[in-house]
């Protein structure tokens, strides 16, 4: 757990807005280099981490977790030190008013998303703001700001790393750093002797803006199997019971038409036999994860989708239970030791 806590905290502090992941590639390397045999990166911003097994000509198992996050991009600089922005990825504008942000210009700049109190609004009504109606308050003059910020610079909603009760953590952008953390923890704990595959962990880019990164990795790696890991909706109270998974009850195996049926069924059966705790969730067609494109990359790839329950998705207080990350790692380890073809 110490590794998970520490790694998760480090991952969450990295600026990896979709399309700008390369700014943090050295931080990923620092974190991963003690664990892996090889590290490589591509032009798209994906990072591939390889751990070799002892077997000659071992088959390849790809484990994907994206490390990009939703965010914003500067589109204009106004009088009084205000910035216009647009969203990158599916940002929830309901949580933006009064949120604190960092603008990654020449230097990191603090800002607040300005909000008009209802009694000062023209129509005096409270409504969901559109992103183009929101401005970021930087406290600088326009002239000073123009020296520090350029159009196109990324903006991140800030939020620290807050420990709640029972091993729960609230932090910005655990989607999908939680799964990346789980994958790193899994590989860290893997016994090389027992590995049935060469392990390729793909730290993929731009999942939030088109889900292309992982499939580019898959194209290069040509894995025999791919395990896609991503977060899934953690149940809040009793809302949407059948579309959500429960935080604290372990990682979930996702059953979907776009994940390999035989592999998925085999894994569920195997985990049951081995008494590895897990949940199940059904996503009948699209999973809206990297799984959907990876499964049809190249000649087609057999994919398994695993997910970690996450509450308050796409907010700076995404909340999860650390136990579920460990559970994900446990499942990955178990599968890396197994002949997946035989399941």
């Amino acid at each position, binding site marked *: 757990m110490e590794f998970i806590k520490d790694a998760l905290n480090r991952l969450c502090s990295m600026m990896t807005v979709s399309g*700008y992941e390369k700014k943090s590639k050295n931080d990923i390397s620092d974190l991963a280099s003690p664990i892996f045999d090889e590290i490589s990166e591509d*032009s798209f911003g994906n990072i591939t981490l390889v751990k070799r097994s002892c077997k000659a000509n071992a088959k390849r198992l790809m484990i994907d977790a994206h490390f990009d996050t939703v965010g914003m991009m500067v589109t*204009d600089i106004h009088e009084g030190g205000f910035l216009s922005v647009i969203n990158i990825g599916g940002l929830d504008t309901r949580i933006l008013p009064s949120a604190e942000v960092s603008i990654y210009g020449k230097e990191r700049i603090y800002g607040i998303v300005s909000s008009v109190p209802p009694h000062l609004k023209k129509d005096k009504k409270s409504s969901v703001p559109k992103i183009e109606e929101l401005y970021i308050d930087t406290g600088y003059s326009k002239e000073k700001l123009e020296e520090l910020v350029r*159009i*196109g610079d990324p903006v991140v909603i800030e939020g620290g790393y807050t420990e709640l009760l029972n091993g729960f953590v609230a932090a910005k952008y655990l989607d999908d750093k939680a799964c990346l953390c789980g994958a790193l923890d899994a590989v860290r704990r893997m016994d090389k002797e027992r590995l049935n595959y060469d392990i390729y962990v793909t730290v993929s880019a731009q999942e939030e803006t088109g889900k292309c990164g992982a499939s580019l990795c898959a*194209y290069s790696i040509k894995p025999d199997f791919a395990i896609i890991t991503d977060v899934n909706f953690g149940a809040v109270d009793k809302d949407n019971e059948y579309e959500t998974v429960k935080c604290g009850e372990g990682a979930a195996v996702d059953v979907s038409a776009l994940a390999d049926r035989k592999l998925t069924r085999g894994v569920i059966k195997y985990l049951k036999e081995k008494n590895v705790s897990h949940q199940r969730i059904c996503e009948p067609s699209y999973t809206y994860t990297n799984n959907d494109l990876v499964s049809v990359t190249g000649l087609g790839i057999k994919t398994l989708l695993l997910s970690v329950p996450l509450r308050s998705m796409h907010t700076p207080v995404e909340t999860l239970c650390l136990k579920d990350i460990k559970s994900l790692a446990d499942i990955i380890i178990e599968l890396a030791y197994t002949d997946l073809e035989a399941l």
Partner: protein
Amino acid sequence: MTELLKKLMLTSGVSGRENKIREVIRSEAEKYADEVITDPMGNLIAHKRGKGKRVMFAAHMDEIGYFVTFIDEKGLIRVGAVGGINTLAASYCDVISENGVYGIALPTEANELPKVESLYIDIGAKSRKQAEARVKVGDYFVHVPRLKRLSGNKYVGRPFDDRIGCLVLLEALKNVKDTDNDLYFVFTVQEEVGLRGAKPAAYRIEPDIAIAVDVTSVGGKPTSPKSKVKLGDGAAIKIKDSSVICSYELVCRMREIAVDSKIKYQDEILLKGGTDTASMQTSKAGCLAGGISIPTAYIHSVNEMIDMSDVKEAIKLACAVAERI
């Protein structure tokens, strides 16, 4: 350059039917390229060999238009849209078929903004029989091409999207100085229907760097979308559109090159509309992808407007990027 522009503008080619415009471009490209090929999808690829980085430029040859789907007993022609037809701009405009038959695009309801499906074309035929003598199902129509100079550097007409990009590529191919870079100038097909042509072209070329040259919307006009881009403010360097986030290191490098070469440029974030950039960025294992855009007002109307000074800057920028990236 104006002669070439005229030729490019006045030769039609709807998505999937780019043969005529391709031949115009081919005859020009062959003068300057080491090799010119047409790939199975119809992309025209002009190659200028080098040993250095493989750089792919792409501008699309196709344009928006209509396919004839049905001819009714009154001789009115029903059509399917090819690409993003703006029905407000299209209503009551003149159109021309691939065989030179003139007609008018009409909405079915007089006072409502028509849906694309409810547009039809009147070629003046009295009956189905009369119409079928001149137009067959499967023929295409486009809005009548035109080119006119306004005051100063401004030109209006259609389809600047993206024949002006083709012009930039041809001029760059012609003017680029010796460089180590291995250069591909690709005139793509079927961009207007989903960025389709660029994907196999990039698959073939496997570029290290890919740059789409296309039009972008300008802000500040009453009907224009929110944009910082202005006519006359120089070539636009693409940062993002709705299909792509450009590789930021490439964006930064292009800005540097523009500043070093004293090329007038502006930043572009396009909120609505995609470009070939996206297809190239994600082909095979991916590449660094960006865009050079020509600011254009009233895109997809019959009177798109550009400023020739921007085009000149775009040509300079394309050359500088080809030589120095």
